């Protein structure tokens, strides 16, 4: 299999997202094992500026899209297809993120390559690759074989370590000119999140609440605990959707990614969209009445109990211990 591995870099407003480095690290391992080149595609406005950070790859292809600040998925997919054909790539890695949503599917349809979503792991097996994905909110795993190692893999955030993809190596950057069709969908503007009173990404201790907290009042109990611990309250999407916490407190795929020293997950089931945002925490303690909740797979300590029973007791003891 001489075809190379191509990674679609994820970048926004001049920042390279961690998922790019995660894919780089994984891609490097695979490329070395298969003895094929590893390439990165940086597409969109400002692509040239972020390319130099991606030195771990053998080559970085920059495709500018003048006139389209944030090209839609179909435009990106067509450009990727152009690269795949031009550079004879066999495996394409794309992040499973809001930004890249749809790129893999359109590319899969146009380039006639199978797309495997929700990837948590890739290994070399036989003459090809086996992609491990998480389905149904992480409750079931699947192994899919890419017999000739050709396909598109949509990689879940946090599946691979980001550090393995960072490198000081100078990147070999190549600007590739490809025709950019005028997209029907046009980007208009960003809507910045309202600055919350608290930046949860800077907190050392986070008390996170999920559906298991049951009512808005109980969020107050969590706030008491957070105060006692010297931290802040955050939550999963359902809690924010209910209006019990503001958007600035949301942790997960559409929310913040946090890496506190302590993450107390209360009444959170551990769906991938949420785990994605907090799996980097140093110590994760999870409380949930469901012993099978996926959160217990990422947590260091687990408590299979009712949050509402434990919370007040815990708060009292913390206060007592702190004096």
């Amino acid at each position, binding site marked *: 299999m001489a075809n190379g591995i191509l990674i679609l870099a994820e970048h926004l407003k001049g920042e390279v997202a961690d998922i790019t480095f995660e894919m780089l690290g994984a891609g490097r391992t695979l490329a070395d094992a298969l003895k094929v080149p590893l390439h990165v595609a940086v597409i969109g406005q400002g692509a040239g500026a972020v390319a130099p950070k991606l030195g771990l790859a053998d080559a970085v292809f920059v495709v500018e899209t003048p006139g389209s600040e944030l090209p839609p998925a179909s435009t990106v997919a067509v450009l990727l297809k152009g690269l795949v054909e031009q550079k004879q790539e066999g495996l394409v890695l794309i992040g499973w993120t809001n930004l890249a949503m*749809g790129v893999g*599917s359109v590319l899969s349809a146009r380039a006639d390559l*199978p797309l495997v979503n929700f990837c948590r792991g890739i290994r070399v097996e036989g003459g090809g690759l086996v992609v491990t994905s998480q389905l149904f909110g992480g409750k079931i795993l699947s192994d899919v074989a890419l017999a000739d190692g050709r396909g598109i893999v949509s990689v879940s955030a946090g599946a691979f370590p980001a550090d393995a993809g960072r490198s000081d190596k100078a990147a070999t950057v190549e600007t590739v000119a490809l025709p950019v069709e005028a997209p029907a969908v046009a980007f208009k503007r960003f809507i910045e999140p309202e600055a919350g009173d608290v930046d949860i990404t800077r907190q050392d201790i986070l008390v996170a609440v999920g559906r298991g907290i049951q009512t808005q009042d109980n969020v107050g109990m969590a706030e008491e605990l957070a105060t006692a611990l010297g931290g802040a309250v955050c939550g999963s999407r359902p809690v924010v959707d209910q209006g019990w916490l503001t958007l600035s407190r949301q942790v997960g795929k559409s929310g913040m990614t946090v890496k506190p020293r302590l993450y107390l997950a209360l009444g959170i089931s551990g769906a991938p969209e949420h785990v994605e945002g907090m799996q980097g925490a140093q110590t994760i303690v999870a409380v949930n009445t469901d012993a099978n909740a996926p959160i217990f797979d990422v947590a260091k300590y687990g*408590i299979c109990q009712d949050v509402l029973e434990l919370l007040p007791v815990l708060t009292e003891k913390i206060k007592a211990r702190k004096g």
Partner: protein
Amino acid sequence: MNLFVLLKTVPDTVEELTVAADNKSLDAEWLRFKLSDADEHALEQALLLKEKHGGKVTVVAMDAPELDESLFMAFAKGADRVVKLAGELAAVQSLSAARLFAGFLEGEGQPLPNDALVLVRSQAIDDLEGEIGPYLADLLGLPYVGVVTGIVPEGGGVTVTKEFAGGLRGEFSCPMPAVLGIQSAEKPPRYVPIAKVRAAMKSSTLETVDVSTDAPARFPIDRLYKPESAGRAEMIDGSPEEVADRLVDLLANQSLI
């Protein structure tokens, strides 16, 4: 506005999911299905658009066990027309589903009218082959935006709000007809009393269209299995008092308190 809502059920994770003996599919004995959250939101968004801007809502759903009640619920909520695509559909994955939906929509009229919007769920827990929306848009030759949380008709098309990460959102202008992947509707899905659903069962007609596909899935699944048990976390047992004590000790040991 001509609104189409395409629905497909997912396994209900309230039940414990187990793998069948063939290790390639889910054990069907206790398997139940329900519409994913995003499907419910897509329907709600369509109804909201109809209420604000007038028009018609057509619901097209891929048949599954226990689906009928949800479809009559859609009628009770205000859908004008509900169509069920029936056939051997248990193994249908995203691309195949997109083809079946595209087939139906193409039968409705080519091209779709200028005030048509096709709303689908942005993503769901069984999207192993990727999301349905982008495939569908590509098949129909229509523009697509995913992770949509807001839709406002403007100047012959729509302005949509899409979510990124970290609470950041973006506004895009999109012409009509288009396919939109709905993450959440502008309001949570409405409640409709059972009495209205039962009334809908008596007064509304569910259209059934037979469909079939030779290729329900793009690729076979080698193996389906449960993740290694939650032994990853060290479980702390006991009464709330005991648990709290132990936890406080642990945190103190790590200099967290």
